[in-house]
């Protein structure tokens, strides 16, 4: 079993510890149907075989699908909880964080439910730190209001890297990861690229040169490059 290798090409001295610390992180997904955030979370997990508790509210499941085992990897057990009330999502996440054997607790909430206030996030954060289990709160169609999450990300998919064999096909996934609030490090924006074959994630600072960075990566742009 190989652990996650992190190769950071970040010039800042205080770099964000991508899921290295076991804290409550909140991820805002800009587009509801964007599954990049799920890839980002799974790519960053240290433990490759421990089970994940995955809690979804009903609306999140309808709008953005459910975790698919063959895509995640059949070796990893998943306990999937689907409930309708946001309060139940938070309760299930807290219960999960009482258990120290999980690799991660993921909760998905739609919108800005009343139950998810500062106190609720604080409880999750403290539980997460006490249990030593990373906890992710995925928010869709939500606003970044008051929260005790130790790290707050805004994540979206970027056009993928070039496929080594087939220029027509999408290659390794790339995501735009914006850390807009962090307790330990400083905020910033990165382009994360996940290399599936070697199972590692590369973070590079967001490109300032828009001509290449904002293209969709098709053959036309590759040629221009």
């Amino acid at each position, binding site marked *: 079993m190989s652990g996650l290798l992190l190769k950071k090409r970040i010039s800042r001295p205080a770099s964000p510890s991508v899921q290295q610390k076991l804290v409550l992180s909140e991820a805002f997904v800009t*587009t509801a*149907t*964007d*599954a*990049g955030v*799920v*890839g*980002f979370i*799974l*790519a960053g997990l240290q433990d490759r075989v421990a*089970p994940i*508790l995955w809690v979804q509210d009903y609306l999140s499941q309808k709008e*953005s*699908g*459910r*975790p*698919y*085992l*063959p*895509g*995640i990897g*059949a070796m990893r*057990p*998943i*306990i*999937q*909880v*689907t*409930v309708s009330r946001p309060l*139940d999502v938070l*309760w*299930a996440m807290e*219960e*999960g964080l*009482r*258990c*120290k*054997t*999980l690799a991660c607790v993921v909760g998905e909430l739609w919108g800005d439910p009343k139950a998810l206030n500062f106190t609720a996030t604080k409880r999750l954060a403290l539980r997460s730190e006490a249990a030593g289990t990373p906890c992710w709160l995925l928010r869709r169609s939500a606003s970044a209001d008051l929260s005790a999450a130790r790290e707050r990300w805004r994540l*979206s*998919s*970027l*056009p*993928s890297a070039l*496929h080594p064999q*087939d220029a*027509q*096909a*999408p290659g390794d*996934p*790339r995501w735009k990861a914006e850390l807009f609030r962090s307790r330990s490090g400083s905020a910033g924006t990165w382009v994360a690229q*996940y290399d599936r074959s070697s199972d590692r994630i590369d973070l590079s600072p967001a490109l300032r040169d828009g001509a290449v960075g904002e293209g*969709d*990566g*098709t053959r036309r742009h590759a040629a221009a490059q």
Partner: protein
Amino acid sequence: MERAGTRPPNDVPVVLVNEAANGQVIYATNRAARLAGMASGARVVDMRAICPELRVDYADIAGDRVALNRLSLWARRWCPWTVTDGENGLILDTTGADHLAGGEVTMLAEMEALLAVSGLTPQLAIAPTWGAAWALARYGTVRAICNYEQVAETLAPLSAAALRLDGATLLLLRRLGLKTIGALADVPRLSMARRFARDALECNPMLRLDQAMGRLAEPVASVEERPWIIAQVRLPDPIQDPTAYLPDLCASLCAQLMAEGKGCRRLSLTVYRTDGEVSTLTAATAAPSRDAKHLRSLFDDKLDKINPGFGFDLITLEAVLIEPLQIVQHCLDRAGEDEVELTQLIDRLVVRFGTAAVKRPVSKASHIPERAEHWVNPLIIAHSYAAATIKERPIRLLDPAEEVRVLYAVPEGPPAQFMWRKQTRRVTRYAGPERIAPEWWRDRPNTRLRDYFKIEDQAGQRLWLYREGLHEDGRGGDPRWFVHGMFA
């Protein structure tokens, strides 16, 4: 049995009837009707002539059977093995259980009192064999008790009908002049055997006599296996809320489980109500457990679902399903306790949300994406099919797949533009197709094949798109396009 709510006064003759070939036939009578000369099996028109004020109602035989089954479970407050006997009898194997109720005499009195509260008039008897108890309850003295040595002399004066024989045999015995059990017992065994050896049990007085005297075994086959592990608390007064007694019950149950080296997988909490009903709550665990605190927590949110009626005076906690659970020495660093923690988490989630909301996916051997994973109850230990996934699969799946509207179709490959959820998406790159044919051994004959494409749209989102069917494949109109999942 008289139905509640419409109970007539005791001095009015009432009969229950059912329909037979020649009109209504009496099925059961009350005491007043019996005194007026009614007998079951007689025709109602004849009996009306004898007793014009007779009240007639239809018998609810199926309902009575259900009620009797329920009553047999309720009677387990006295002993663990109970079984229904015919249409109107209960057999309780109280061997070794009578001292709990303060002896046999006290137990019979208690049974009669509690059954009378429920509106039933029991005829009770205690005897060492099923046959003798059946005879004494119906033909013996009130609350008869006989021990093993007295069986022969107690039964001797009773009518031969007390031997559970059918009508033809009884008629034959009467013609032979054998009217009592004593007379039958005096007949030499050889003559009896010569006459009845080949007859079935219900028309064989010799076998029936052997059963009653205990020479032929007739065990009580209880409807379910005898509960092994059970904790109970008897209350002086009926109460409505069992919460306060649960910790002690769980602790007692776990001590018993510990002594047996077992852990319980399914628990049932039963309250015995004063009105003769039982109300049961069950809980299940994902792995054998004998952790009192954990078992207690399984009933946390459920206790309000128990129906206390007008109160209950007996609570039992029973381990319905038990499995071996040995004491395991864990490593010093508590490494082995992981499994226990996880199963307890599953238990808590299932208790709160139900088995429908908590699921665990396992892989299945199937090409069809939605069948490649199977969602199972987390309490069941299911083995995952170790699939060698060669093709890349999406990380999220939409269930069911959502149809898209193609704006700009291309002959080969995915559409250049399509509309999904009211948003126009332009396909910039794609990989595919990957053709997945229907599974002919499961699907309906006209199911269409699917061509899957991994596409990337202008915003960088990677979707799993498929076309259902081909042009002119003879299985419907134009092929339709669906989004089935999202890649990372």
